[in-house]
């Protein structure tokens, strides 16, 4: 049940991707509007396309978490692709000075496409590079196969923590409302 500390960035990246994927799947319209804004489209991008992106993110997260038992570093490849796309749209958002809420995490968060996307995308690129390097190093390749349950447990705990942290404003608002209700 030992998990090397080097697995932590992979778990964090996978949790972020799952969080973003579920958010996009539930609320695709905000990202559709944001993309239409930065790409100068007349109509918002259709929900089906946004959900397809969400599916790719979910696949990237799943393969990333299972990378210790896979023969090909497909998780890191998908992570790199997601990172590059995030950086590209972050740069585009900055250049266009868009103010439309990004919708990268669905209805959670109202930041426009910009610096935060560049930062997350860059982090994904770094994690994928380090992961690919580790994967290709003969000394560690395939050695973590027995750690998969622990990795999944840590990912589950991290995902819940990330969700609570990201929704703290909503939780606080609802707590206040519930406290005020009996008056």
């Amino acid at each position, binding site marked *: 049940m030992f998990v090397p500390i080097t697995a932590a960035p992979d778990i964090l990246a996978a949790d972020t991707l799952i*969080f973003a994927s*579920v958010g996009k799947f539930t609320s695709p319209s905000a990202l559709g509007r944001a993309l239409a804004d930065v790409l100068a489209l007349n109509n918002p991008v259709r929900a089906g396309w946004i959900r397809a992106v969400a599916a790719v993110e979910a696949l990237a997260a799943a393969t990333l978490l299972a990378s210790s038992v896979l023969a090909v570093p497909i998780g890191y490849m998908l992570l790199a692709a997601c990172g590059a796309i995030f950086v590209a749209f972050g740069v585009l958002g900055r250049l266009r000075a868009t103010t439309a809420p990004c919708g990268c995490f669905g209805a959670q968060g109202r930041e426009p496409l910009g610096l935060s996307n560049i930062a997350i995308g860059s982090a994904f690129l770094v994690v994928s590079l380090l992961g690919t390097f580790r994967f290709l190093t003969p000394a560690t390749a395939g050695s973590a196969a027995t750690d998969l349950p622990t990795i999944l447990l840590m990912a589950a705990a991290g995902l819940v923590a990330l969700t609570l942290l990201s*929704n703290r404003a909503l939780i606080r608002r609802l707590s206040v409302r519930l406290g005020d209700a009996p008056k």
Partner: protein
Amino acid sequence: MIIALVVTLCLLSVGVVLLFAMMAELWSRLAPLAPLSGVVTAIRPLDEARIGASDIDWPIELSQVPLLADATLVVFSTSCATCREIAGQLSSRGSGGSRLLDSLFIVVSCPQEEIGEDFIQRYSLRDAPHIVDSRGEWTRTQLGVQTSPSALVFRNGRLEKAFTFGSAEALPLNQSGGEREAANDSHAMALASGRNGARAKEAG
């Protein structure tokens, strides 16, 4: 056994994320329209509407809209609870013998015409020029609107602004010249802040 436990925990954690995502979506839809206290006068701009359009094929019942300097078209749906509340508010405004509201026109979107006629009858909206729009076809094709309740403000037949709202208090109706100017200003501010993602409120 351990694998089953781990998979269950993973599914539960994804379920937590899903619940929060749905709650955030619900909050984003309700927050602009339904503050828990005070008069509900918040409005939110409707991006889907054909703002600026004047090439609208008006049915005979609404033929006065393009001829008026100011006209407000309110779109209701028979399956929307807020629409019923607002229809009730408009109905009580119009009671007292006079014509309901001078510049108000109503579209009732419904699955079947009988249901729409029943809505008009129940809320005594016959005083206002109205149409029953089966399946919302006319509203969608001519105005680009698929949201209810919504209000569309026309100036000389041109669609100037469109917004969704939570109370009849938000409608710019039955006002003198000065009141109308003030209402227009506050609507413009509310719509602008709504576009910036802030909760748009109006003093009523």
